[in-house]
Structure formats: structure tokens, C-alpha cells
């Protein structure tokens, strides 16, 4: 009995030794800045001045009443919903296709992944030219007025221009995850369902989807985070325009922190977004885990 207890203690010490370096780094690089961030967000401070005035929750109240902040939040929510739907649907369809015994499957698997290895800036430059020169040229040729202007030049359509590039690059990794998920479905269950007379749709809905739910949960968190933190594509494609229509939260935080020198205000906004991000992620993970195959 005593020997077992000593063995357990040694085991826990070994575990602790493995955990400590990561924990210390996490503490230094994430927890400490977070606490300091909360501290600095209670001041009126430009980031470099020796003088800073304590204003309590002033920055938070100002942010909540700031039109730019609320419109950036609305943009991010709309963008995230569209991004999640597009990426999950497209990558699931792609994964289902790639899971079949297609001819040239290896080639297709390499080709669909190509956009993911292009840098975001390069992708933005390519699509800037496509949107401004190639598509309007086609529109002129075919006499289609809707195609004669860049999708990025209108406040109502610019979001779709950014979304398309993001989806074009963003489906690769979720497709790999879905493909891996599909390969965990036992063949005998699918065969049994066929013998029981299940249709392809019933097979997909009753077997495939429940098995893929844990993957959906992971993809959802990843894509949601991408959607709420979108920055690079916007900088490369619209710079937040036209007329501020595509200004995202991260972009606003960057501008207010580094261009308008409202450093504490920007920290307060970033912290509020973190809270939203954590809450939404936790909520959707709880919901999806309840519905997963284990249940």
C-alpha cells in the first residue's frame, strides 16, 4: 500500500516537472499580460506618456457607446456566421468527395490544398487584380452590369469579396480534419445500415454527421476564432473600406492602439472581445458535445 502511494507521488512529481515549463511560460506570456491589460485598461493612457489618469471603467463604457466599435462587432458577427457556414459546408462536401474512390484522387487532394500554402498577402494581391481587372473585363464582354465594378468597391458587397478569398484559403485544413473524421466511421456500421435499407441521406444524417460532430466542434472553434479575429485579408483587400464598411474589431483595435494612440482604450476593446470569444466558444462546445456520438 505504502509502495503504491510512493509510486503515485513519484508519478505526480514527474507529471508536474513536465507541466511546469509550459505553465510558467503560460503564466508569463498570457496570464500576466492579461492581468496587466486589465490594469492598464482602467487608465486614460496613450501607451508612452509618463502621465496616465485612472478612469475606472471609463474605457469600457466609451467603447460600448462608440459607433465604430458597435459597427465593427456587427461586421465581425455577420462575417463569422457567413464564414462558418461557408467553410463547414464546402469543406464537408470536399471531404466527402475526396473520401470516395475517385480517379486522380491524389492529384485532387494536392490541388485543393494549394491555396492554403499561399501567403495571405499574396492571395490578397492576386484577388485585388482579379476583382478590379479580370471580373469587370468579363462583365464588359458579356454586358453584365453587376460584374462591371469590383466587388470591393461597394460597402454592401465588399464583405463577400473578402469572404471569398478567406474561404478559398480557409477550407483546406477543415477538409483534412473532416477527411480524418470520415475515416474513423466503422465500415461495418455503414454496411449494416445498407442491409437495413437506409438511404444515402439517412446514412449521412444518422451515421456520418454524429461521427463528425466532434470534428465540427473543433472546426467551428477554429473558424469562429478566424472570423472574429479577421485582419490580414481586410488589410490586403479593402483596408477597412469602403467608408469603413469592412472595419473589423482587430483592425479597430490596431488603429486605435497604434495610429490614434488610444492605447488603454484599445486594450479595453480587445479584452471585451476576448470575453465574447471565450463565451461563444464555451457555449458552442457545450452544445455540440451534448449532441456528439458519445451521447
Amino acid at each position: 500500500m505504502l509502495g503504491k502511494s510512493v509510486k503515485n507521488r513519484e508519478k505526480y512529481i514527474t507529471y508536474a516537472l513536465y507541466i511546469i515549463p509550459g505553465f510558467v511560460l503560460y503564466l508569463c506570456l498570457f496570464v500576466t499580460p492579461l492581468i496587466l491589460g486589465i490594469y492598464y485598461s482602467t487608465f486614460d493612457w496613450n501607451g508612452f506618456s509618463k502621465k496616465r489618469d485612472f478612469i475606472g471603467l471609463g474605457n469600457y463604457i466609451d467603447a460600448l457607446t462608440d459607433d465604430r466599435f458597435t459597427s465593427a462587432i456587427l461586421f465581425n458577427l455577420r462575417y463569422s456566421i457567413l464564414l462558418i457556414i461557408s467553410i463547414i459546408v464546402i469543406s464537408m462536401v470536399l471531404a466527402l468527395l475526396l473520401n470516395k474512390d475517385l480517379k486522380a484522387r491524389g492529384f485532387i487532394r494536392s490541388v485543393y490544398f494549394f491555396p492554403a500554402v499561399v501567403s495571405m498577402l499574396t492571395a490578397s494581391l492576386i484577388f485585388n487584380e482579379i476583382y478590379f481587372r479580370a471580373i469587370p473585363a468579363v462583365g464588359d464582354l458579356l454586358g453584365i452590369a453587376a460584374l462591371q465594378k469590383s466587388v470591393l468597391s461597394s460597402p454592401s458587397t465588399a464583405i463577400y469579396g473578402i469572404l471569398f478569398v478567406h474561404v478559398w484559403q480557409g477550407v483546406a485544413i477543415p477538409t483534412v480534419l473532416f477527411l480524418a473524421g470520415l475515416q474513423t466511421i466503422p465500415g461495418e456500421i455503414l454496411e449494416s445500415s445498407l442491409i437495413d435499407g437506409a438511404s444515402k441521406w439517412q446514412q449521412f444524417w444518422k451515421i456520418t454527421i454524429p461521427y463528425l460532430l466532434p470534428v465540427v466542434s473543433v472546426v467551428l472553434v477554429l473558424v469562429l476564432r478566424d472570423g472574429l479575429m479577421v485582419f490580414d485579408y481586410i488589410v490586403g483587400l479593402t483596408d477597412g473600406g469602403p467608408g469603413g464598411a469592412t472595419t473589423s474589431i482587430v483592425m479597430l483595435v490596431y488603429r486605435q492602439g497604434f495610429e490614434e494612440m488610444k492605447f488603454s482604450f484599445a486594450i479595453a476593446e480587445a479584452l471585451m472581445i476576448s470575453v465574447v470569444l471565450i463565451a461563444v466558444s464555451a457555449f458552442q462546445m457545450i452544445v455540440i458535445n451534448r449532441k456528439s456520438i458519445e451521447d
Partner: protein
Amino acid sequence: MKRFSIVLMMLACVAMAAFGSGSSESASSDGVVEIEFFSLKPEAVDCYQELVDEFNAANPDINVTLTSTADAQTVFLTRVATNTVPECCYVFFNATYEEFFREGLFIDLTDDPLLDLVQPSIAEMAEVDGRNYSIPVTLSPSGIYYNKDMFAEHGWTMPDTYEGLIALCQEMEAAGIQPFAFSDKDAHTIGQQAERLINGNINVDVISKFEAVGAGETSWTKEPEMRELAEMLLELREYGPADNLGMSHEQAIADFVNGKVAMIISGTWAATTINQANVTFDYEMLPFPSYDGRPVYLSTCPDTCYAISASASPEKQEASRRFLEFLLSSEALGKWLQTDLSPNMAVEADYNVECFSVINDMLSEGAMVMLPSVLQPAGFRVDWQVAVQQLFIDHDIDAFLAKSDELTVDYYN
């Protein structure tokens, strides 16, 4: 992965601002003084590296290390926020940097012999509360770039008046040539253009109007300047691309050098990009013509400036001085002028850039005025340029005036 960089930078700023850090180490044990030269001009990295190597070879007691990153401004602001200001810096001259000077981040160079290496007019321009905290070297005015071959072929000349410019645009259109390319997708180019026109062509003292509107003494609906600017910008857009809001700065330059358009409005900084896009292209930049018979000024500010960190040790400050002396020598300036064509105000500079000869003459005659954004609260122009872009979307001048009022009051209080 820029968003992660932003998050990390914000975190780093917060952490380091708390823990503090300085750059006051003195000479290394072998007696060589190590200094860091931070450049805010990533496109000049090769030129600066060459100059740094040359300086290090000639000065064995000093070792300069060049720091030049793609997103230099963000990195620099992070360094400032974390109290790790490099010993020797390339700085800009705008509202944010003026605040840095006032905060005492850089040493006072007012009585320093280094200031004698640049012309008094630019030194005076770079004063903050009557003191010089940086050595200003170049200016960055803007104007109209035109295709010289195209103008010569059609017998056109650049008019002296705004009315003449509109008439010329109509003539160009009749000849089947698009007069202008406007890069209105990039809001910052709109801001640059709008602030230079309202100041250099509409009212040389417009800054006092901004202050009065900010103080609530008047409004842009009562003052004529903002409406005149809106009308001018919208009228000019009639002679630009149909999809001006879809065109980027690079695309505008591509259309200009490829002869698709006759003119673009931009600053002296665009010359390097134009030359890189087409080395045989013949062009010139002239000031924007007189509006309603008013005098024309070049709205500009010191562009390339050098400063020395106040937190550096006296030894490192002295080493930085020697390095800056070298950068302002005729030999180094000769190399610099191959990289940056902007009007150079260093005493030793042999400035002879043909495409800017008229502009340079105007600067020498003193026909210049300080850029409004240098004198306005930090961040004003970033917000205001979005309002100007919105004007191009809805063409609603009244809404633009109301937004300009709102922003002016907001930022000036």
C-alpha cells in the same frame, strides 16, 4: 499571421511597460560602442545597410546595427511603449511623433551642430514648441504627375488654374484618353490628397478653421473650405475611372506608367514606385493648379528625420551623432538620393531630380505650408479620410460636412 503579431505586440507592450526596460548599456568590453539604428523606411533597407557597413568599416570604435522591419511603424511604437527606444532612429514628423518629442523620448538637438547640416527652413519646420528634437532631411509635397510624352504628343500643357485643369480633362476625354486614375480604394491616399488640397490650394490657414470648429465657435456648414473641397474632389472624380473605389495605389500607378491615364495626384514618395514600374517612363510632377485665383502652396512636412534616444548613455548618444554626421555627408547623401527622390534639404545634398525641379524651386522659395495632420490631434486624419471615402460613395456633401463637424469637435476636445 499579422493578427497574432498584433495580439503578441499588445501583450508584449503591456508586459514590458510594467517590467520596464532601458537601453542604457555602455560600450562593450572591447571598447566598441554598440548602437542600433532603427529605420522606418523598409524600402530603403539595402541603401541603409550599405551605409551602415561603410560607416562601421571606417569607424572601428563604433558598431551600428540596422533594424528595418516590414511593419516598421508598429514595431517602433511597440518599442516606444516598452521603453526600449533604439539609440538612433529614423522618425517621422507628425502628431504622434511630436508627442514623443514632448515626452522627452529624444534628446534636444536645437543647439547641436548636427542641425547646421540641414537648411534652416526645414529645421524651423521641424520645431516643436520652439525646440528641435530631430534632424529633418527631406520633404514630401504632392502634386499632379503627368505623362510628358502624352502631353507633348497632344500639345497639352499643365494649366495654372483649376478651371483650366477641368477644361484640359474634357479635352483629354474628347481625345479618348482618361485624364486621371484615383486610388480611392486605399483610404490613406484619399486622406493625403484631401488634406493637401484643403490646405495648399483652398485655404493656407485652414488649420485655424479646424481649431475654431473644434472649439465650437463655428461649423463646416458655415465655413466654405470643406464644401469647396468636397465639390472639387467630386468634380475631379468625374474624370477618373468609373470604379475609383475599386482601384488601389499600385493599380493607379500601373495605369499611369502604362499610358492608360494621363495624370495621377500623389506625393513625391510615388516616384520610386513609378521608376520601378517603368524605368523608361518620362514624367514630371507639378503643383496642383490655383483654385479660384488663390495662391498655391505646397502642403508638406519633414519626412525623413533622424533622432537620438534620450535614454541612451552619453557614449551611445555621441556615437549616434557621429553616425548621423556620416548620413548627412555628401557621399552618403549621394547614395541616399538613388533610393529616395523626395526633395532633400541637407546642406551637402546635390539634389538634382528633374521630375521635381519645379516643386523643388517652390520649396526653395518658401511656398510651402505645414501639413494639417501634423498640427491636428493624432488619429484625426485616419478617421476623416473614411468620411471622405464615404463622400465618394454617396456624393452627399451635407452628410460629409456634418461628419467632418462631428470628428473635428470630437478630436479637438
